[in-house]
């Protein structure tokens, strides 16, 4: 991508190859001029007659020329090659997994400078990705191991003869609940990993967004009727061009969260409308709300703000939703306060230009 900004002096972006060629040409021309003018001068001053007879002079001049030529090219060439060697060494370290080396950007110009800047940028990005990956793996294995510990442990307990009826019931219930959690988590992780490797949304088509929201609401009918939730729907008929299956994950996630955190008999407001070039979908619940700290971290993988409900979910739903919305070139925000409910808003660009 070309950087537009202050106009940089043209020699900083000239190709190294061209510089070499120009230099060579300059040297040749200068050499020719020098030879010609020296000869003419010598001719004029009679030096030719005096010194040409003696072979030492012309030979000496030739030898001197060679020595100067060698000194000049070595003096110019080696410093230019050194940063390339440095970058080479640093790249070797990167291929072995060491992203920590940074090179000094201040000294060189032109293509060498760009090479060094590019290397530094690349090492920084790789370092960040590595950090996320390590974090994710740690979180992930912990989240998986925890239910497995319960399932295995309590299953072994159930093999004993000396348990009370109540203990037996309780342990069996725990095994069922933790297995359920694992099942949900593996489905989410699979989807999340698939999305992480995607840069664009595929399989886009026009469809009715309001109807999709109604379908998603109906999908969760059991959850909201069990809790006697009152639905207030304000859905404008809107057409959206996107991947219907992906988007349904977003809506189901937001709505099931809203139901989960609503009190029994509470109200849930779901709306969709067009605002300028965007479609705005809002899901509002009047439940527990979130602290400012929770709000900041809520889209992180595996993060669960509320420890009371932690057993029901796995902290991946909102990361998934955010990833999908990002891939659509949209935005997802939350406004919330403790005991005052939460409103999640999803902004989808109608033009659907793709991720920024």
């Amino acid at each position, binding site marked *: 991508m070309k950087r537009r900004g202050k106009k940089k002096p043209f020699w900083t972006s000239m190709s190294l190859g061209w510089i070499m060629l120009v230099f060579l040409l300059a040297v040749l021309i200068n050499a020719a001029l020098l030879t010609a003018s020296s000869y003419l001068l010598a001719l004029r001053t009679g030096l030719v007659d005096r010194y040409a007879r003696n072979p030492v002079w012309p030979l000496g001049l030739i030898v001197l020329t060679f020595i100067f030529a060698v000194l000049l090219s070595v003096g110019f060439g080696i410093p230019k090659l050194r940063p390339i060697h440095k970058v080479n060494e640093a790249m070797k370290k990167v291929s072995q997994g060491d992203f920590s080396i940074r090179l000094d950007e201040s000294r060189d110009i032109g293509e060498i400078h760009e090479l060094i800047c590019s290397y530094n940028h690349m090492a920084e990005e790789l370092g960040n990705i590595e950090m996320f990956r390590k974090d994710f793996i740690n979180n992930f294995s912990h989240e998986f191991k925890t239910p497995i510990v319960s399932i295995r442990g309590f299953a072994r307990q159930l093999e004993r003869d000396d348990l009370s009826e109540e203990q037996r019931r309780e342990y069996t219930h725990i095994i069922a609940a933790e297995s359920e959690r694992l099942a949900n988590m593996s489905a989410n992780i699979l989807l999340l990993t698939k999305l992480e490797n995607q840069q664009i949304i595929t399989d886009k088509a026009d469809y009715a967004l309001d109807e999709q929201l109604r*379908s998603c609401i109906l999908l969760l*009918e059991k959850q909201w009727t069990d809790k006697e939730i009152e639905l*207030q*729907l304000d859905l404008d008929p809107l057409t959206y061009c996107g991947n219907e*299956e992906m988007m349904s994950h977003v809506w189901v996630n937001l709505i099931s969260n809203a139901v989960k955190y609503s009190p029994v008999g509470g109200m849930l407001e779901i709306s969709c409308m067009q605002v300028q070039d965007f479609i705005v979908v809002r899901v509002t619940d009047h439940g527990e709300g979130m602290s400012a700290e929770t709000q900041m971290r809520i889209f992180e993988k595996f993060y669960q703000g509320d420890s009371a409900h932690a057993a029901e979910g796995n902290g991946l739903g909102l990361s998934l939703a955010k990833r999908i919305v990002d891939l659509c070139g949209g935005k997802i925000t939350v406004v919330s306060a403790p005991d005052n409910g939460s409103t999640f808003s999803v902004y989808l660009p109608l033009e659907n230009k793709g991720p920024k």
Partner: protein
Amino acid sequence: MFNILVVEDNANTRKLMTAVLSQNNYFPLEACDGIEALDVLDKKHVDLIILDIMMPRMDGYEFTETLRTSGCEIPILMVTAKEQPADKRKGFIIGTDDYMVKPVDEEEMLLRIAALLRRSKIVNEHRLTIGSTVLDYDSLTVNQPGGEIELPKKEFLLLFKLLSYQNKIFTRRQLMDEIWDMDSESDERTVDVHINRLRDHFRNNEDFEIVTVRGLGYKAVKRK
């Protein structure tokens, strides 16, 4: 007593399913792949098939295709680990009646089995009974204690649909897509008009009523 054939290659999964089915008053039959399943179908009467997809020798898709092309309309519930939308679509196109992704919730599976059996009965007999009211598909008539009413086709189909899936909410769009032509001139308000006419006809019917779910659509429920 319904015979349900479980076609699944994993022994534990099969064991689990047959246990759940027996406990719910169904009679389970077992097969470990498509070929064995065809054998069972030859020898016994089967009301419904629970079908895994990934099996050796003959997989679920092949089995369904074989069944459907030979004219067998036994309801099929695919239960499989394959969860991609493309897999689902393939299943439905080949001829399955329903599709669940493993691991399945047993309760949900039982509900779907019940719905499939019910619809199959309706399809087979072309009539739907609710309490003392009977809907006859072939004559588009509704027989209730007060007398018999013949309904215009679209009205009948609307009522039939809602009562076939009792308690299920349908959006106006879903009803339109099913009962009216895709490119007809009517819009969703037409559905409202027809629903009101149905309500007029059956205001005094003691077996069912049509309920509006605000913002979502309509459903038919049994009257208490």
